[in-house]
């Protein structure tokens, strides 16, 4: 069980309010991702849930019980830190066994659980090594192992993959998703990586300056961003946001259209411009189009084989059905 409810939670450091009153419910077994720009309070929120910081006002409930003043160890949550925070003088086995030793389990049970975690995470080859003798990915696994042996009500991850290289990150991302499918335990995951958020989450919470901007499934956020901030934040490359006469023509203040929803061709579209930089990724090509008369650069995604080059004049066709219209207040219009 691991249903976590935040009720009008606030947090101030001195007289700086980092988290204004915030309500959020995380359902049991859900994989929730917190995203937001740097400094928006993701880590702070996670640490409030963990109990490593005291909340200034409000209430945190875990499975319906008030946990606001329960010390971290007794909340039944396990945290995986960005720096892994392994105990450097203990072997991998001792690291993983540490929470169990603290809980005074008997040795047979400790051994059984450590073996279990080691086999789930493929740690067996280096179980007697010290953390200093492991690679980043292996350390990450040990940190996760130390979290799962406790059989917590929920896992908290604070940017666990940001110290890994790109290839390893993809691998670990899959492993964590896999683990979630297998354990069916609540997981809260902080990241500022778009792809991690989109691929892993059941539910994404977009934060800005401590405010929740929108909560929803990855596709909900992608299809119907509630405001300009979410529209610009979710999706890579960013959504094109066009204001001025072209937006007014569509009856809104700002018109949003994603790069993948614009067709680029030699001629025939309603908009036209000159190709600037093109980024070839192999499967896709991103063109940055200038001089469209839409008052900014437009980014367009095309197939990898589309062969326009710098300085070519091209024509653009946006898909009318997936345009996003935002009002002067920045909110989505119907």
């Amino acid at each position: 069980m691991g249903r976590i409810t935040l009720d009008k939670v606030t947090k101030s450091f001195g007289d700086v309010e980092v988290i204004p009153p915030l309500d959020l419910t995380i359902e049991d077994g859900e994989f929730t991702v917190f995203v937001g720009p740097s400094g928006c309070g993701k880590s702070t929120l996670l640490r409030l849930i963990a109990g490593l910081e005291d909340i200034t006002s409000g209430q945190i409930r875990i499975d319906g019980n008030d946990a606001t003043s329960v010390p971290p160890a007794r909340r039944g949550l396990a945290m995986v830190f960005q720096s892994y925070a392994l105990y450097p003088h203990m072997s991998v086995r001792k690291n993983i066994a540490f929470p169990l030793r603290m809980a005074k389990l008997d040795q047979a049970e400790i051994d059984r659980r450590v073996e279990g975690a080691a086999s789930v995470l493929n740690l067996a080859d280096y179980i007697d090594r010290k953390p200093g003798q492991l690679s980043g990915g292996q350390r990450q696994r040990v940190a996760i192992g130390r979290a799962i042996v406790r059989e917590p009500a929920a896992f908290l991850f604070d940017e666990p993959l940001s110290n890994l290289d790109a290839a390893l990150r993809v691998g670990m991302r899959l492993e964590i998703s896999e683990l979630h499918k297998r354990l069916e335990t609540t997981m809260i995951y902080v990241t500022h990586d778009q792809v991690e958020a989109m691929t892993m989450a059941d539910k994404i919470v977009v934060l800005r300056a401590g405010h929740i901007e929108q909560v929803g499934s990855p596709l909900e956020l992608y299809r119907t961003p509630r405001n300009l901030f979410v529209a610009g934040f979710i999706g890579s490359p960013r959504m094109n946001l066009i204001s001025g006469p072209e937006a007014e023509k569509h009856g809104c203040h700002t018109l949003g259209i994603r790069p993948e929803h614009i067709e680029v061709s030699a001629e025939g579209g309603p908009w036209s411009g000159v190709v600037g930089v093109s980024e070839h990724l192999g499967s896709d090509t991103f063109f940055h189009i200038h001089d469209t008369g839409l008052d900014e650069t437009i980014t367009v995604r095309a197939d990898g084989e589309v062969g326009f080059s710098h300085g070519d004049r091209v024509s653009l066709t946006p898909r009318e059905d997936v345009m996003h219209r935002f009002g002067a207040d920045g909110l989505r219009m119907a």
Partner: protein
Amino acid sequence: MATKASRSAARLMMAPAVILLLGWMLVPLTMTLWFSFRRYLPLRGGDQGWTGFDNYVRFVTSSAFWPAVQATLVIVGGVLIITVCLGVLLAILLDQPMWGQGIVRVLVIAPFFVMPTVSALVWKNMFMDPVNGLFAHVWRFFGAEPLSWLSEASMPSIILIVSWQWLPFATLILLTAIQSLDSEQLEAAEMDGAPKLKQFWFIILPHLSRAITIVILIQTIFLLSIFAEIFVTTGGAFGTRTLTYLIFQRVLESQNVGLGSAGGVYAIILANIVALFLMRIVGKNLDN
């Protein structure tokens, strides 16, 4: 030092320092060795030629030798225990955010800057004097008979004085070590269910082990040769005659350079045994 080239380059660059140090130490060492085999009484006939191992035999068979070794070990051991234990506590305390931290830190470091002779004099006259000392006043305030510290509790007094001098050193080294501890490790331990005391035992203390061995190593080397504190306070009486002090007495009070030199050679051997022993511990500790 990974490659052969870098190893030999390192050797070459270290050579001047090594040669200088060797010369620096070899000259006095050879002179000590030389005198230790001679009968040399400056005021009673001067240098009277070779005596073989006579000085060595006389030094260890003298009734003062074993008590001196014991006194040395007791002082070194006592000071080490006190400075390391209190040093760890103080370091943890000073690491907590508190009001006036900068000033408190300077105050804690201050005793280290006081010369041993001066600090021993201050302790002897201001604190431990049986008539006018601060301790005597405190004792009398509680209606107790003032202790004449330096004669009745001579060993503890000297250990106290020397500990007071070396505590800042231990605290300083341990404080920097504590500050290098990743706070996420403590938070992880807290989440893992370790209360404060267990966090100290399982996380902080192992983290400090390297710094503690370094403190022990450096202090031992310096403590084996303390002299001023004893000279100023008890003058080697009341069972506080250490090996260093015994050598001093042999050379200057008995005017027997040969005998004193032989004692010096013993002291060198003792220091080397201790150093070897400690090097192995430190080596083992620095490996991981």
